[in-house]
């Protein structure tokens, strides 16, 4: 009773104080930071830029293509990656769960706004910077202001690129809108897709013209702008070329909000070629180690790689921690302190490099004395990209088995064609289940239940920090940088653009540079299929292939009720040998890409607020 009385008393008193305190005081606030403080010192500008860089839509380790960009201290489910719906990997997604996107609309905290989720908030931040900076020439110097303006143009282009590749034409807002303006002015219409890409190109040209030559890791310089331009213009070029052949009709297309006239393609391809040629000499493929396999592994871990153009860094020490979980979510528990893996490279991906020699000419499975013997003679880049059965991590072997055959006879094809019940193999759900004293599936093998062991026979190796001690490999404990732009991609962009422009010689030179570094045999001539395949091999698991499939407008063909395979190792007990069978991966997934997914729907919430965003993209 007494405490309730006290509570009522305190509420009444509190309310009294609140209401009596509403006097107007016209003095500069001491608890918020004014533009003068931010933009008149390097430290102030740095902190302002840090907020924008943090919001950059970089599709890194933590990016979830069905949910969005993640920056939290416990966003550990890194296996929800776009590679897991495109056939690079088989993973947690049940099907094509990312086609509709996640309603990206640069939401972000903006200065002067109470809402931390303002639509276009990050773009507003950049626009504000572009308006404010010229007022602070005295404090920062004209040269520095120009550089920072260039950086702002780069950042703005980065946001618009992320929007344009998802939605096509979107409203270009290049000034700071006044929230007090009439509603009609705030409800901006969509711009045409062509104009949106041209705007991105012009922004990056301006960035290139004004930014400095070098920058600290994690920040951009003029060459980063150029590299991004090659990526963006390649996307635009392909929309123009291939989007004119394979498209979904609708009002938005008729009015130019999606789609670009095919005549524009050559111009965009030329811009890619020019940009990539300008980058020559400023970056180089990583070739520090003469062992090509180890070299390719280290290229993703060495912070001083001359191949890195733009990276995103992570830190456990930051508060809150920004560390990711790549190591703990792509390796089995056997090799980590605490892990949960769920996405595994497919045999279809591995066969981009070569057909594995697992079958004899008479159709019987080839017998191997050790699992690791299969890796003999394979391309070093492949071995550095995926962990094969028999490979080693942290002193432990991937002893992956699908099961044991007490006895095996006949051909691989006949065996795989049998119904499960007709096969004489022994499978297991638990790594500790034994058959005559031998583990049936190994410590890392293919279980009949659960997702936490490989379902394809392979594990991801790219980006795995093999130097970490087992007891330190835990969720939210990985700090290796995400390489958002690297020189290998520039060479691939260049090869593709050159080939589209008829410059096949230049394309071949670029591809062979990559193949030499990879330890692959050089090509003597090159086709578009080979260029695309090279790209898929080189940039595997880097969240690029999904966008490649989209811009080439082949996603609906490649992912048309698509099923993928695994490499199933079995131990043949009476022979004391191993065999490998090519079988459907054990998730049994299939993937269908709707044609409308070439563009994502404009977010429903934004359509509700701004009817001028209609027409929505075709078939939504």
């Amino acid at each position, binding site marked *: 009773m007494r405490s309730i009385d006290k509570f009522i008393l305190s509420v009444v008193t509190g309310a009294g104080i609140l209401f009596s305190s509403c006097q107007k005081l016209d003095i500069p606030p001491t608890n918020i930071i004014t533009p003068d403080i931010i933009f008149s010192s390097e430290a102030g500008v740095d902190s302002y830029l840090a907020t924008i860089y943090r919001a950059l839509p970089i599709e890194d380790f933590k990016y979830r293509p069905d949910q969005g960009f993640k920056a939290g201290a416990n966003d550990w489910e890194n296996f929800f990656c776009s590679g897991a719906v495109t056939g690079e990997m088989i993973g947690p997604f049940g099907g094509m769960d990312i086609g509709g996107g996640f309603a990206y609309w640069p939401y972000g905290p903006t200065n002067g706004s109470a809402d931390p989720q303002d639509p276009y908030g990050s773009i507003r931040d950049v626009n504000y910077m572009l308006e404010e900076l010229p007022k602070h020439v005295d404090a920062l110097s004209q040269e520095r202001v120009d550089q920072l303006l260039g950086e702002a143009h780069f950042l703005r282009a980065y946001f618009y690129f992320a929007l344009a590749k998802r939605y096509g034409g979107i409203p270009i807002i290049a000034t700071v809108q006044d929230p007090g303006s009439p509603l009609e002015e705030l409800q901006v219409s969509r711009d045409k897709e062509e104009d949106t890409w041209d705007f991105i190109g012009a922004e990056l040209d301006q960035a290139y013209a004004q930014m400095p030559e070098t920058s600290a890791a994690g920040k951009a310089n003029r060459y980063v702008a150029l590299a991004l331009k090659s990526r963006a213009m390649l996307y635009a070029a392909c929309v123009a070329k291939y989007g004119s052949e394979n498209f*979904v*009709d609708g009002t938005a297309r008729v009015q130019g909000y999606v789609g670009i006239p095919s005549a524009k393609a050559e111009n965009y391809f030329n811009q890619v070629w020019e940009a990539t040629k300008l980058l020559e000499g400023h970056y180089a493929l990583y070739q520090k180690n003469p062992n090509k396999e180890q070299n390719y592994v280290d290229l993703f871990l060495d912070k001083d790689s001359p191949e890195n153009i733009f990276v995103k860094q992570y830190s456990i020490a930051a508060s809150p921690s920004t560390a990711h979980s790549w190591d703990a979510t792509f390796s089995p528990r056997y090799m980590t302190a605490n892990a949960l893996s769920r996405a595994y490279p497919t045999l279809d991906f591995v066969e981009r490099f070569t057909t594995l020699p697992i079958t004899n000419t008479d159709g019987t499975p080839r017998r191997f004395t050790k699992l690791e013997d299969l890796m003999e003679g394979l391309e070093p880049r492949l071995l550095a990209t995926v962990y094969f059965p028999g490979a080693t991590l942290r002193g432990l072997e991937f002893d992956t088995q699908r099961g044991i055959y007490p006895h095996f006879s006949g051909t691989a094809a006949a065996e795989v064609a049998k119904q499960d019940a007709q096969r004489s193999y022994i499978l297991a759900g638990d790594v500790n289940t034994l058959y005559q004293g031998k583990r049936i599936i190994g410590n890392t093998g293919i279980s009949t239940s659960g997702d936490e062991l490989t379902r394809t026979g392979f594990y991801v190796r790219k980006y795995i920090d093999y130097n970490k001690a087992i007891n330190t490999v835990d969720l939210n404990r990985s700090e290796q940088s995400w390489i958002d732009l690297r020189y290998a991609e520039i060479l691939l962009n260049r090869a593709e653009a050159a080939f589209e422009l008829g410059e096949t010689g230049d394309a071949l030179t670029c591809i062979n540079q990559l193949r030499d570094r990879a330890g692959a045999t050089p090509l003597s001539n090159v086709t578009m299929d080979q260029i695309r395949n090279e790209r898929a091999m080189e940039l595997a698991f880097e969240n690029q292939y999904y966008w490649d499939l989209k811009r080439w407008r082949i996603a*609906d063909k490649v992912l*048309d*009720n698509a099923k993928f395979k695994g490499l199933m190792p079995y131990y043949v007990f009476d022979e004391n040998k191993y065999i490998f069978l090519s079988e459907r991966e054990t998730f049994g997934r299939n993937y269908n890409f*709707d*044609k*409308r997914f070439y563009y994502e729907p404009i977010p*429903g919430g934004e*359509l509700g607020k701004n*009817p001028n965003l*209609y027409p929505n993209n*075709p*078939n939504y």
Partner: protein
Amino acid sequence: MMNRILLGLLILTGSACTKIDNYGEPTASFEGRLIDATTGQNFLTTSQGINVRLEQISWSETPAPQDIPSKIDGSFKDSKLFPGKYRITPMGGAFWPVLEPVELDINKGTSHDFELTPYLIIKDFTTELDGTDLTLRFRLDAPIGAGLPQILDVQPYVNTSAIVGGGASIREYSEDLKVTVNKQWINMTDMDKTMEITVPGLLPGRIFYVRVGARLDDSYKSSNYSEIVKITVP
């Protein structure tokens, strides 16, 4: 103490329920048939094979669309709609796009039929059961050949219920027997258009419902279907 809590809850409950939704209930309904313009019969489709898209233009100039999926017999019905004026477009199936949407006032019991021109018609569909092997023969025909989307593939659909079509079939008897075509209509000879598919090893003593479909490379990758035939395997 307990009484006070109850009293508090009562006050809260009472005061929370003072606002009433001032919109009418969804009392209107809309139904109709999707008609094959070439035969006058119901369009041969499957459950959700076609969507009747409604846009309530009396509510907003830019309404969020809602779809009524087709039933397997080529009809459609939604009995929980808000009365008002709608723009209505059948879409999503294997027919030439409806370029002029219908605008209708939808009230209780509103009905409207739509005539659709199929991309392909499956003609002369016959079945022949030899033991447990079922041979299906048919011929593709197109009411309008020019500008027809590429023909991707043909396949049988076999199910144990009369609901049979895309998404409702037995994989081994259906999808696994898909025949790739990947040809433009104008490049197809009469021979290309005449098809024969055998479904081997049907389980004896069962009843199956069987049809065939041809899939096109339109925006929806939609399929034209044959009629459904009941097969009793002795």
